[in-house]
């Protein structure tokens, strides 16, 4: 799959995502500076972690207005696969491609740690059968506290949109939510960093499963379509 990794000013996990996708998964991957207006035929989009626009105002609030975003929104609305990691998740929520919002961690402090995630049976490939019951994945964020109103939460639950829950909630997220998808199953967002868990030197290699699930589920969708 041709993958575009979007670089915003202040993105800082863009290269990490690149190493994981190009290096470990051998996918044709390219870094896309946010000022580009089109996605040049990319088949999947990654919005990486970091501090786009310094996290000023609200995380993701300014990035979501940057020139490339209309193309990303259009791509997503046409069923194109999009995954947002950490700051990327925040941007997708701000852009309205995913429901809810991310606010300051309950403890107010930035947390860098490796967390255990419970895998939720959400859709093809994103389920316990494919991924196993739990995954150890690093987190590193100050604003990963997922918020959504009760109705919204009920909808997420009813539509199996929750991908992962924290075993020990580090940030106060409602319903221990660590990652979600949209109803259609083509837009994904998660605070934990799968790209930080793909090599032997990393805290685990459980990120491989997540990235694989993303790629496979989307290839399967496209074949169907």
């Amino acid at each position, binding site marked *: 799959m041709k993958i575009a990794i979007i670089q915003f000013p*202040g993105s800082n996990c863009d290269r990490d995502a690149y*190493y994981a996708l190009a290096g470990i998964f051998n996918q044709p991957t390219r870094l896309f500076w946010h*000022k580009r207006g089109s996605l040049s035929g990319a088949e999947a989009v990654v919005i990486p972690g970091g501090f786009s626009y*310094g996290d000023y105002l609200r995380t993701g609030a300014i990035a979501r207005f940057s020139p490339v975003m209309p193309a990303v929104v259009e791509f997503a609305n046409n069923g194109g696969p999009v995954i947002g990691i950490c700051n990327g998740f925040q941007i997708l929520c701000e852009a309205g491609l995913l429901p809810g919002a991310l606010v300051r961690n309950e403890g107010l402090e930035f947390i*860098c740690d490796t967390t255990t995630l419970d895998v939720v049976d959400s859709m093809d490939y994103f389920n316990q059968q494919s991924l196993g019951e739990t995954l150890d994945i690093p987190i590193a964020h*100050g604003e990963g506290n997922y918020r959504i109103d009760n109705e919204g939460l009920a909808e997420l639950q009813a539509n199996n949109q929750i991908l992962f829950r924290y075993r020990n909630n580090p940030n106060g997220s409602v319903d221990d939510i660590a990652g979600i998808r949209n109803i259609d199953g083509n837009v994904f967002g998660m605070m934990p960093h799968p790209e930080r868990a793909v090599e032997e*030197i*990393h805290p685990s290699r459980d990120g491989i499963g997540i990235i694989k699930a993303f790629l496979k589920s989307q290839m399967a969708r496209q074949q169907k379509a």
Partner: protein
Amino acid sequence: MSTEAPAPNPDPTLNVDITPELIEQHGLTSDEYEQIQGILGREPNLTELGIFSVMWSEHCSYKNSRKLLKQFPIQKFDEDSRNKVLVKAGEENAGVIDIGDDWAICFKIESHNHPSAVEPFEGAATGVGGILRDIFTMGARPMLFTNSLRFGSLDSADSRRIMRGVVHGISHYGNCVGVPNIGGDVYFDPCYEGNPLVNALCLGVLKHDQIKRGAASGVGNPVYYVGAATGRDGLGGASFASKELSEESAEDRPAVQKGDPFMGKLLMEACLEMMGQEGLVVGIQDMGAAGLTCSTCETAARGNTGVEIELDLVPQRETGMNSYEIMLSESQERMLVIAQKGREEELEQIFDKWDLHAAKIGKVVKGKNMVVKQGGEVVARIPAKKLTDDAPLNDPEAERPDYMDEVQGWNVEDLPDLDRDGLMDALVKLLADPSIANKNWIHRQYDQMVMTNTVMHPGQSDASVIRLRMGGPDKDKYIAISNDCNSRYCWADPYEGGKIAVAEAIRNLACAGARPLAMTNNLNFGNPNKPDSYYMLQESVRGLAETCEFFDVPVVGGNVSLYNENQESKIDPTPVVSVVGIIDSRQFITTSTISKGSEALVLLGDVPNELGCSAFLRVIHDLKTGKPPRMDLENQAALMDFLQVQIQKGRIHAAHDIAEGGLLVALCEMLFARDHTFGADLNLEDLPIDRWDALFYGESQGRILLAVDANRADHVVHDAERYDIHADILGEANDDHILHIEAPNLEKPLEWDMEELRTAWDSSIPEKMKIDD
């Protein structure tokens, strides 16, 4: 010879006579002023006086320490070393050392002590930003941060406030720029109350042919100002850092600079992109302390040429700034770039891409002067080299403080040994001492993993380790780094304390499987004009220098921070040492914690009975006295050789240096794995035991705990004998939750619940920090 006098300043308030009061306010002595008159062949105007005052401040000129620094070895003794120093200490913003295959690393440590005392969050954040710029200025991509922190006791609300702010500030800046913070050291001691130390280190990687110099050359080449606009921030910060913190510094407060890590990140990326274009950049220098002044005159001096700038072209955040303010401003996130003439557009396009402004503010000119204009009129004209190279050199008086005889004469025999209950209790108390306790509260606020190169996180190994991607597992390189300094040792004996700091850092590297490459240091001391303070500086540097020489570890850079004192207290001498090493194969990377039970535990080194200046004396007896432990360098060299061979043979499953808190603290740290706590069963029948407290909690140097395969323990001990190293099998680790120690003459075995010990160690700092919630 005189330098032509500038025109009257457009701001009339700057056209005043230079009075003795003004000279004093600028921290200059009358001798220094005469020297300035001599250099110019006339009176300076106020702008020029300001420029001299910052360039000749301690912070920029090292006037009180430069002579001492000459003792440091600045290159490898071994001419054929595969790790030559490519850029030496003092030459540029940071030193550079070869790591093979045309790659090099560049690293430096920098203090931001005074700004952090005044405003902990911004002070620490801008400290991180400053050291980051020092590294990428060299053409290197920053790969890691570490930091050395010293605070007052956490029982003081003010110390907690400062630590909270400092840690937030470091995490705020470092996390945002996307460079992992992988370690450091933290100590708490009342001497740092009101005098916190914040030393930040950055390390970057670059190809040999990417090294950039901070020199101006090529008459006619344009001088660019890039990054944030200039405001009235941090006016006089460099001279501020060269003063004791007095009551007045509360008034100095508007001087606090504010960092913008977002801009810092953009500036880094833009500069790296620009430096990647061959021949585009002629010279580059960050604007740190003394901002525009320092960068202009240093680039001119290094290039042995003149530089002319026009202040009206300098981007300004505030209106009505005069030449004095602009030249002395310490606004953050600014760089000075000398570009190749004719390629201006290329440069401007790069900054445009990153939404940054590149302003052409001047050019390289004939002659040797730094010429500053405003509105077309010259407002300052000074021979650049005189500012940088002719700064006065002081020879302060040194006098050994009186307390030393008494302290060094302290006799351990005067202290009764502990009974069984006392011994049991002491371990819990030591583990809960914040200087020893788990520092997770601090480092979990730092992104340790961004860039996905981190191999050994804080607490996992005696040194932090990162991988440098070189294009494949067989080409990748592994860099280790360790920070150290036990200031109490330095207080009791600055020479021995200095030796110990370097030796310990090198030993820590050895435990991680690394061999040392080079050292950087931050000399944090009190007022050099006080003879006893200067003595401490002088003796510490001697200890550091000799030890570096002994291990052939060149010093590639560093920083000096003096005047760390206030009316109530002054810091113990704190020469923070950071040694960087390389691990020749990934297989050699060694942890300090064990990952399974049933390991044999082997103690390398003697069992002397030293307790002077130990954490044990401090925590259990509330005593600050005694000779620090002896440091035998020959012995350590053998120990390191032995360890290296054993690690390369694959025999060592974990290795941990015995430091603050002694044997049992080190043992516990070894058993406290990230998500598991092991137990151990020790039998000390064979040890020559003099006193229990010294055996368990003494801090004799050059000792290492090893975890080895139980079947191989005998081989390890046997091999050690051939290196003349004392080795004892102490017992075995296990999967139970008990630490059980049998020893002769104890009425019954010592036994601790490991979970209790773990809780004491884990919860100490978070509990204290919760007081204010």
